Each structure stands twice: as structure tokens, then as C-alpha cells.
């Protein structure tokens, strides 16, 4: 595991733009020795209904659970996977068999030893049956074998490239078999008294108020964690969370709970530090209804996209944090990015050219200066989409396209965009869950009325084939080639197009060091320490 201080703040500074790097003590932190003690207070919402990570996709529960439960592997800030309960692992060349070698001296918080039997129980009896997201990955699982107490062998029915991602918390926080076996998973009292192997132990939960976690003195990584206590304070009101941070009553607000428009103002203050891109890559996207005229014509779709000032959209809707889109997937998966499929090159912001293209496509301006009207459907309570729609309306007015904004409630939007497909253009946001397989649903053929998939009627067998090959291969180099090929087709056909890559930002008090070691928001915080603490635990 990365030793404390290995990810130097200087590295953060290079990684991020200068303005974002507000680690108060600057470069000197690198030489500073971590201290023990201190309490970190994190604001979350709403009140968690239980505390078991592998039974939910709720981020407020994951923020708690991944400090109490450990995964087999842990994600790292650079996007790679590192060890956690498994100290090493091997993948067979055909990508069908995964062997994990477990840490030997690990105990659950109740003192009982951790063995491979707990892993087998967790995957077979809980994750495969109850985890809302990982369940779909686990259908690929043939068997979980435990040849000895410290080895786990998982065999798959068919190869699945991103399988190892599911071996991290929150998809796989390992449960103690001795406490859960024979209980009704959905009703077990363990749901509110989590016992795991993680750096912090559950102490108490006061419903609607707070949850207290305390240091695990017997954590299997010797000398860790540094903090004495983590308190998760439940603050349902967004402005109240920011006020609490400013008043020093709260030390950490994860991106889900932090209103981005406060970033510009707070980032000027020395008491706070921020980290961008703490969530798995996500985007904002425009879908064209390619069954309706004139959007059935790819030339019209290209012209409309070209008329959008995506840089301005990022500035206004994502508060300058995100990035203008380049790839139909996400440029934060560098292994699938190709200059041959780049929105910025293919369709740079150019209203004059967009005007010409629309003229050529047979939609001249009428006497009132407009060409045609499109209805744009989006969710009105979404934080990013209303400002996006306002820039879009203005930009398209510049090229003579009249926009009728239809901002509606979430349920109504889902019915119109995905159920009835009654829209000309719809604005949506998607997240990848850490791998481009999470994004193929934007373009893949979809005949269902499910929400947050492809609502455009676009169906290209060639693209679908490339997607299934890209999902199956184990090596990202090979996977990348398939996705690159698909990207070229998708940029040309443009049934849907990414507008910008969202960036989520966490806010924290500057007195804490060692935050943000994981590639996902589900941090263990075993290496977090507070300035001015003790030398010894």
C-alpha cells in the first residue's frame, strides 16, 4: 500500500490546475510526519436507513461503510487498483479465473479472524443476491472456491474486462460470515451495527443526528489509521452544509453534498482545500430524437452541435470545473481516446459554419429569422441541466433555431424522454461507474423503455458488436481499440453527443492531510491525519 506522503501535494499541483491546489501548508507537507489523533466531521444526507455498503448504491451509506468494511482490492487516485484485504492477485490469460491471496493477520472488529470463508459467503450469499449494481456483474460468476483459508479463486462464465472493479468497496465490503450466516439479510440487526475489518469501528448512530466511528486499534495495517474518530453529521439542507463548513462545524463535504456554485467563492479562502474529479467520470449529454424531422438528418445534428459553445456551457453549468467534451465516452479513460474521434476537431464551435450547414441541409431562414423549432426536454430540478439549457437556447437562437424549453419534474421527464420518447432534444447526465462499459448504454441499441439508457432509436449493429467485444476483453489495450473504432462511428453519426465532462469537487478543512487517496469517493481514510496531533497512537 502507498506509504503516507507518497502522493506528494506537489504531484496534486501538477495534476490539477494551480488554483485548485490549496493545500494550506504547500510543499512542506511532503516532509511532515503524520500525526495521530483528532476527529474529522463529515456532513452527509439523508439519514442512512442502514450502514451496509453492499446492500445499496446510496453514497451516504458508502461514505460510512467503506471506512468500516474493506474490499478485496482498493481503487487508487491514479485509476489503478491496489491491494486491500487481498495482498496480491492473479488473472488467468483467458480472463476467466481470478485468484486472490488474502492478508493473514486480519481480525473483524469483534475479534474473530477473517478468512476466505467470509469472502465466499459475502459474494455468494449477499452481493450476488442483494447488491443493486454488482448483482449484474456477479451473474457472470461461475464459482467462488476457497482452496485454503487465505486463497480465493473466482471463476467466471465469460470474460468481463472490468471485473476487478467489483472487488473494491463499496461493491464488495466483506461481511463477517459468523454474524450474518442464517440471518435474513434484509432484516438483520447487523444492518445498523456494522462489523467489518476496516480502519474504523462503528460506535453509535443517533438517527437524524450523527454516526460515530472510532479508530480500530487492531487494524491489519500496523500503525494506521491516524484519526481517533470520524463523525458523520446528517445535514439535509444544502446551504446549511456550506454554512457549517464555513463555521468550522464540519470538516469535509463530499461532492454529492457540496453545491458547486460555492466553489469559486470558497476556493479563495485559505482554511479550505478542494479536490476535483473525486467521483467516477460522468458527463452531460444531448440526445437527438433521430426519428423526427429535421433531426433525422445527421447534417442538421452536426450543425446544431457546432452551434453550441461548449466552453461557455462548462463555465456556466459546471462552474468552470468540468471540461468541454472530446470523446463520445470520456477522456478520463485515456486508453480509448483517439484524435480521429474528437468532437472539438470534428465540430468546433462555429455559428457561421453551422448557419451554412443548415442552409445546405435545406432549412433556410424564414421571414421571421427562424428555421425551425425544437422542444428540449430536461429535468428542471437538476443542478446542471437548466443552466445548460439556457446557453443552448441562446446559442441556437443565434443560428435561427427556435427552442421551446420543456423543464419538467423528474418523473415527467423520465416518461417523456425514455418512456414515450416524446421530445426533439433531451439533455441528460450519465455516470460511468468507473469504466466505459457504464457509458455504452448511451448509444447501444435499446428497445426497452428503461430510464437512463439510449432514448434516441439509434441502432447500429456494428457499434453494438464493438461494444460487446470491448466489454469482454481483459486487456485495456485491446478494449481501447474496439472503443476507438466505435468512437469514430459515433462522432460521425452523432445520434447523441457529450456536451461536457462533469467534474465533481470535494471540499475539506485545510487542517487535514492525506485525503483523496482513492479513485472513487468511497475512501477508507486510514491515512488521513490532522495537523498538530500526537506522535504516537
Amino acid at each position, binding site marked *: 500500500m502507498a506509504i503516507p506522503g507518497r502522493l506528494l501535494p506537489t504531484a496534486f499541483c501538477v495534476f490539477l490546475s494551480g488554483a485548485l491546489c490549496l493545500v494550506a501548508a504547500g510543499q512542506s507537507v511532503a516532509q511532515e510526519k503524520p500525526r495521530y489523533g483528532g476527529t474529522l466531521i463529515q456532513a452527509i444526507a439523508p439519514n442512512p436507513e442502514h450502514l451496509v455498503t453492499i446492500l445499496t448504491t446510496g453514497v451516504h451509506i458508502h461514505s460510512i461503510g467503506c471506512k468500516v468494511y474493506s474490499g478485496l482490492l482498493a481503487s487508487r487516485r491514479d485509476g489503478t487498483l491496489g491491494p486491500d484485504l487481498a495482498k496480491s492477485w492473479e488473472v488467468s490469460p483467458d480472463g476467466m479465473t481470478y485468484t486472490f491471496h488474502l492478508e493473514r493477520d486480519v481480525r473483524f472488529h469483534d475479534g474473530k479472524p477473517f478468512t476466505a470463508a467470509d469472502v465466499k459467503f459475502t459474494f455468494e450469499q449477499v452481493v450476488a443476491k442483494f447488491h443493486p449494481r454488482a448483482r449484474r456483474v456477479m451473474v457472470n460468476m461461475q464459482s467462488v472456491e476457497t482452496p485454503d483459508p487465505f486463497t480465493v479463486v473466482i471463476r467466471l462464465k465469460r470474460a468481463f474486462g472490468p471485473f476487478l472493479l467489483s472487488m473494491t468497496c463499496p461493491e464488495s465490503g466483506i461481511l463477517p460470515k459468523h454474524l450474518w450466516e442464517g440471518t435474513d439479510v434484509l432484516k438483520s440487526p447487523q444492518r445498523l451495527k456494522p462489523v467489518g475489518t476496516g480502519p474504523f469501528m462503528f460506535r453509535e448512530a443517533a438517527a437524524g443526528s450523527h454516526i460515530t466511528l472510532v479508530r480500530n486499534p487492531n487494524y491489519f495495517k500496523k500503525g494506521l489509521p491516524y484519526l481517533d474518530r470520524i463523525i458523520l453529521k446528517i445535514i439535509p439542507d444544502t446551504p446549511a452544509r456550506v454554512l457549517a463548513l464555513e463555521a468550522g462545524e464540519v470538516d469535509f463535504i463530499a461532492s454529492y453534498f457540496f*453545491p458547486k*456554485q*460555492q466553489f*469559486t*467563492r470558497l476556493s479563495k479562502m485559505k482554511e479550505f482545500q478542494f479536490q476535483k474529479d473525486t467521483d467516477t467520470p460522468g458527463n452531460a449529454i444531448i440526445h437527438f430524437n433521430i426519428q423526427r424531422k429535421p433531426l433525422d438528418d445527421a447534417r442538421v445534428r452536426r450543425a446544431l452541435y457546432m452551434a453550441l459553445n461548449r466552453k*461557455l456551457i462548462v*463555465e*456556466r453549468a459546471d462552474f468552470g470545473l468540468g471540461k468541454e467534451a472530446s470523446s463520445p465516452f470520456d477522456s478520463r479513460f485515456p486508453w480509448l481516446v483517439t484524435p480521429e474521434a474528437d468532437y472539438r476537431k470534428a465540430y468546433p464551435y462555429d455559428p457561421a459554419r453551422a448557419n451554412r450547414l443548415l442552409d445546405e441541409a435545406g432549412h433556410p431562414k424564414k421571414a421571421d429569422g427562424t428555421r425551425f423549432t425544437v422542444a428540449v426536454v430536461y429535468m*428542471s*430540478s437538476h443542478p446542471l441541466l*437548466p*443552466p445548460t*439549457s*439556457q*446557453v443552448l*437556447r*441562446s*446559442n441556437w*437562437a443565434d443560428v435561427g433555431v427556435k*427552442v*421551446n*424549453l*420543456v*423543464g*419538467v*419534474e423528474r418523473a*415527467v421527464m423520465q416518461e417523456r424522454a425514455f418512456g414515450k420518447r416524446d421530445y426533439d432534444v433531451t439533455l441528460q447526465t450519465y455516470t460511468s461507474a468507473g469504466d466505459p462499459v457504464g457509458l455504452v448504454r448511451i448509444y447501444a441499441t435499446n428497445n426497452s423503455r428503461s430510464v437512463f439508457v439510449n432514448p434516441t432509436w439509434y441502432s447500429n449493429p456494428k457499434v453494438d458488436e464493438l461494444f460487446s467485444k470491448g466489454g469482454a476483453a481483459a486487456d485495456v489495450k485491446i478494449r481501447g481499440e474496439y472503443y476507438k473504432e466505435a468512437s469514430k462511428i459515433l462522432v460521425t453519426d452523432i445520434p447523441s453527443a457529450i456536451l461536457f465532462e462533469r467534474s465533481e469537487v470535494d471540499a475539506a478543512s485545510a487542517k487535514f492531510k492525506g485525503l483523496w487517496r482513492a479513485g472513487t469517493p468511497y475512501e477508507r481514510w486510514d491515512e488521513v491525519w490532522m495537523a498538530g496531533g500526537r506522535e504516537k497512537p
Partner: protein
Amino acid sequence: MRSFARRFLRNLPAAAGAAWVLGMILVCALVPWLAASDPLRVGGDAFAPPGAAYWFGTDNQGRDIWSGILHGAQVSLAVGFLAAITSSSIGVAVGAAAGFHGGWVDSFLMRVTELFQIMPRFFLALIIISLFGAGIGKVIFVIGVLSWPPTARLIRAEFLTLKHRDFIEAARATGIGDLTLCFRQILPNAMAPAVVAGSLDIAQAILLEASLSFFGLGDPNLISWGTMLYNAQGYLRQGWWLSIFPGAAIFLAVLAFNLVGDGINEALNPRLRESQG
């Protein structure tokens, strides 16, 4: 009529309210000349403070707030007047029918009125607009349909007292029909409270539209004062001008219509007239 106008204008707050209302109507008519720019046009200059370039500054999207206030006045006045006309029409019709007919018609119509009265108006409007989508027409309709019960009860009460007066009995004795009696004889004499209620309804409708917009349920294709306030919520610390101008506009408009309503009431009410000498 002249004495009414004199009494109304002698009441200084009422005159001030009327002046503000007339000013707003004038501004609405002159908007194309006063604020030519599209108030929804996103500009490069965001959060510009009030100054020579932008009198009231610009918002987070670089939109001109001065232009927004003027165009918003059109929306607010349109909603106010049209919703009040809708609610007054329904109210007068229901109240007149109930009061004139009496009996089971009265009982039935009053139960319906009570049904509408006990419904939490704002929450119902919230639900209807969020389910059927925001549009200025829907907003006017919803406010109009939900605001008529007080007018209906007022008109009914007036009808009940008027229909047994001697001049009505006399008119009835001449043999004129019910409809003529109702519309030519009773209604003109019952209109005073309806006019007062109507002008207060305008203020209520403006406020209700602003409240709906403040919850993000305004028509996104139009600028309204409530929408501007809704948008300004997140930026209270970054630019006071985002919220102060639309807030002041709503405050002054609602105040003006209330003053006008009170002024009409005082000018028409004989008892108040006497007490003023």
C-alpha cells in the same frame, strides 16, 4: 363617478399605488424601446455589477437584469390581470347563480366553493404545474381556477341582501325576466366588492406566480421576477443585485395593487366615507 375619483385620489397611498400600476402598464407597452435586448440571451459578461453598461448588472449567465425586470413586468402583469379576470369571472358567475337562485342550487354551489376553499392553493398549484409542465397559460389557468371562492362568496352575499330590496321587487313586478333582472339590476349594484376583491386578486396572482417560479416552476421560455429570484438563490453571496431588483419589483407591484384595492374599497364604502367626513 367623479366624486369616487376625487375620494380615491385624495387617499394618498391609493393614488401612489395607482400611479405605480399605471407606470408599470406604460413600461410594459414600451418594453421594445426601453429594453431591446433579449432578457434570456446568455452573455459573456457574468456577474457584472450595476453600472453604466448594465444598469442593474448581469446575472450568473451574463443576462441583463434591467431587461429581465422590464420583460418580467409584462409576464407578472399578464399573469396578474388574466388570472384575476379568470377568477373574478368564475367567482361572479358562481356567486350570482347561488345567491339569486337560492335553494339546492345555492347549497350545491356553496359546497363546491368550500371544496375549493379548503384545498391548499399553493401546494395544489405546485403539484399541477410540476405534473403538467410549466407554461404561462397553465400558470394563469391554475391561479385563476384556484382563486375564485372568496369572490363567489362575496357576490353571493351581495345578491342575498339585494334580491329582496324594494327596487328589485319593483323591477320584478314590471315582469322582466330573471336573467335581465340578475345582470341589469342586481349585478351592477353588487360589483363594488367584486372590483375590490379583483384588484387584491391581481396582487395575489402576481405573488403566486412569483412563488411558483421561485420553486423552479416558472416557464423557462419566459423571464419572470420569480424565475430571476429562483436563479439568484445560489448566488446571494456573489451578487446582491441578482436578487434585490426582482425582489423589489415583486414587492412594489404587490404593494401597489393592494393599495389600489384598499383605496377602491374606502372610496366605495359609504361608512368609511362618512367617517372621513
